[in-house]
Structure formats: structure tokens, C-alpha cells
């Protein structure tokens, strides 16, 4: 079942960029507590359309926390266009891989980030269906 890479463990034990940004330019949240996970991303965007700061808060499993953390590292300093391109595959790879049953967790972080970017850009994103978990567990 859950056999996490050293990289995952490192990001779980020492998560980077945890917290909130008071005057965030964009905020994105995905997940649902009844599904066992919520991820919230805050971004600051500078004049060059680059992400100058990013923070997260996560309620979720170990993979959810680690993917949030690495995502913030991966996109800090990137342009919004580059950040939007970040795939869950890339997130998983940056963590040295994720167990099969946890691959879906990496969607969350990328999704939350995209939502934050869209929020900054003023794009409405479809609301989550509250009655079904948005990803398959297990």
C-alpha cells in the first residue's frame, strides 16, 4: 500500500510554504472535507506575470500534503502560463513517484493552483460537486 519515496517523506515532514497570504492576488480551493481532503493555494503575482509568492494549506493524506508542498516549490518564480502547464505527472515525478493508489492526490495540488491562477485572472471555474468526491480513492 503506502510506500512513499524519501522525497515525499521529506516534503511531508518539512512542508515548504505552508500558510496563508493575507493579501493574496489569487486563491484557489479544491476538495471537500467529507472526501478526506481540501487544498487551498494562495498566490502573489508580480508585474511580469510571475508567481512571486505561493502558500498552501491542506487537510488530507500524506501525499496531499507532500504534493502541495512540492507544487509551491515548482511554481514559485514561474510565469502564470508556465505554472498553468504544471501537470500532475510532473508533480508526481518531482516527488520521486507516488504509489499507484495515490497518483490522484497529485491532481489536487495542480488543480488548486490553476484555480488560484484563474481566480487572479478573473476566470470563473465550475464549482465542485459537493456530493461526490472529485477523485477516486483507493
Amino acid at each position: 500500500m503506502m510506500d512513499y519515496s524519501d522525497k515525499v517523506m521529506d516534503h511531508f515532514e518539512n512542508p515548504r510554504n505552508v500558510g496563508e497570504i493575507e493579501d493574496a492576488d489569487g486563491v484557489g480551493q479544491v476538495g471537500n472535507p467529507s472526501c478526506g481532503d481540501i487544498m487551498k493555494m494562495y498566490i502573489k503575482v508580480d508585474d511580469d506575470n510571475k508567481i512571486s509568492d505561493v502558500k498552501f494549506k491542506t487537510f488530507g493524506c500524506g501525499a496531499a500534503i507532500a504534493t502541495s508542498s512540492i507544487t509551491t516549490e515548482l511554481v514559485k518564480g514561474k510565469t502564470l502560463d508556465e505554472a498553468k502547464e504544471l501537470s500532475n505527472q510532473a508533480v508526481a515525478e518531482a516527488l520521486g513517484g507516488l504509489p499507484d493508489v495515490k497518483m490522484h492526490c497529485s491532481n489536487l495540488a495542480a488543480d488548486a493552483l490553476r484555480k488560484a491562477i484563474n481566480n487572479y485572472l478573473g476566470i470563473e471555474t465550475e464549482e465542485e460537486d459537493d456530493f461526490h468526491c472529485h477523485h477516486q480513492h483507493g
Partner: protein
Amino acid sequence: MERIYMDNAATTATDPTVLEEMKPYFTEVYGNPSSFHSFGREARDAVREARDKVADLISADDAKEIVFTSGGTESDNYAIKGVAEELKDKGKHIITSSIEHHAVLHTCEYLEDKGFDVTYLPVDEDGLVDPADVKDAIREDTILITIMLANNEVGTIQPISEISEIAQENDITIHTDAVQAVGSIPVDVNELNVDLLSLSGHKFHSPKGIGALYIRQGTRIEKYLHGGAQERGRRATTENVAGIVGLGKAAQIAGQNLEEKQAKITQLRDKLIDGILEEIDEIKLNGHRTKRLPGNVNFSIRYIEGESILMKLDLAGIAASSGSACTSGSLEASHVLLAMGLSAEVAHGSLRLSLSKYNTEEDIDKVLNVLPEVVSDLRAMSPIYNQD
């Protein structure tokens, strides 16, 4: 790092005395109990002695009522499918509870696929089945009631004797999954008055892969494993002699000063429960406060998720579980906690710490020392926790 094992509801360490007892049955007394010769006779004698010890532990009238199996799951499958198969012409209705172990639930679901009708009784917020509900659920065609003696997640102990009285009045076969109870609390098949009872050795310091099904004499049940004539024709396959010897020894040891050990573990449990309640706010003890297994502690800790709690504890050298071992890892909210009325959100933050005779006062202190920080670290990271 000194590690602390508090996942004894998942499995226990084999008692070294049990292992000692088993050793000769691998390389020296290795005969097949069905064999005619002296090697076979020695193995046969060992199996006989072990059967007596298991019968003793649950106060069975006759050791013949004990059939060895590969564990709790097989015992549950055997009991439920065996009765269903045998009595299907009499009726196809089965009554169980909604908080059974998957070995019972998934077997019942399998039977539903085969045309059986299953009633899953609700439980109250402590996880208790109401015997009145059992009575109400009984129909003309009810052939089996299967309700667990003690729950593996929250430790709640069911009023099985009351339920079996109802079963008896209505002439319905009754099985109880006593996998979590046997070895932890006194279990007497006659007091419980059940026809079938499942137990599993690895929950009380025998090795994994060996268990038993108690089958009261006269109980009608189809066999489960077809083949040779072992176990008086009730379970084919060459007997797991070393495992059986281990189960016997573990049963014998468990029976010695059972109540004393129970009291000691209960005292540790209560210290742990009280300590956690004192140190951490916004938590909820799951399961009945007193009608509960001596070693079971189960809390829901709001705003955080079970797996991440387990990871943090594991990093601190504490082995615990969130929900049952079988489901931990899949992050599905425990069906037991949901049935007890918890919201999925709260259920996701559940933590089970389960004790055995090997746990000490120091273990409790260590957990009480580590857990509050784990919780506050994770809450600090949680988007749904309101820090003010």
C-alpha cells in the same frame, strides 16, 4: 529509535513462548496428522492437544466443536456461506449489523449477488446494536443472524447473549465474529449461546494464518474447503500443525489470569483516553465508554486527516491505525464510524490506538507526549481549522 506498537487490533506479536512451543513442529515433528505412521501420530497428538486448549479458552463442551481454519476471514466465510448454502431451501434471509468487519460484510454482499436478502441493522452512536431491532428484522425466511462480539475499530462489545436468546426463540442459527474478543475478554460459547463463533490467533499472540471456527454440535453447515477428510471432514487440507500448536499455546496463555490482564490493559487504556481528552480539544471518543474492549482507544480528531496523523506518529516511532487495517491506506471513511452517525469529515480524522499485554505505562506516556504536538502541527496546516 525505540518504537511503540499500538496497533494490536490489526495484529499482535507472537508470544516467544508460543514460538518455542511451535519450533519442533517444523523440522522435527513434521509428520502429516493424517498419516498412519509414528511421524503422523506425533503430529496428530499435537493437534489434539491444541484443539483441547482452544476449546477450553471458549468453554466449548467438546473439542470436536473446534475446526481449525486459516484465520478470522476464513472462519467468517465458512460460517456464513456454509449456513447459507446448507439452509438455502429453508430461506434466504440473513441479519447482520452495519458495523461488521469486511470479512462478514463482503461475504454478505457476495450472497446478495447470489440471491440472498441481507438486513444490515443500524447501531446507535456508541456502536451498539439494539436487540429489539434484531427481533423486528426476523422474517419467516431468516436463516442466519451474524453479529460481531466486539468491533475491531471502536471496540464496542455487543449484547450477544440477548441477541442469541431471540435467535433461539425463533430457531435461527446464530454466528458471532469474536475475532477481536477472544483472548482479550472472557468468551464462553455457552453463555453467549451461539451456534458458530469465529476466532483468529494473530489477535492474541499466536502467529498469523491460523484461526478456528467453533461449530456447536448439531449445527447444519456445508463445508467450505472440499477435499481430504481432515477435521472430521469439515475442512480439507493438510493441517497447519505448527500453526495449530501455536494457536493452542496462545489460547492456553490467554486463558491464564485473563481477568487480571484485562484489568491491567483497561487501566492503561483509560489513562490513555483520559490523557488525550485532557490534552487535545475538539476530539471525540468513538465507541462505548465502558462496554468496550480493554485495549481499544479510538478518537476522531477534528480538522485533520487520519493518514497524516499516522505518518507523523510513525515518524515519532508510534505505530497506530486509522480505521481497520484493511481499509487504512484507501482513505475511505470508515463504514463503522459512518454507521455510528459521524460525518465523513469527522470520520476521516479517526485514530485507533490498540493495546496488548506488551504495552507499558511508558508507552502511554510517550503517546501522550507526542500526540498533542502532532495534532497541533497538522491543524496549523489545515485550511478548515480556525486558529484563534
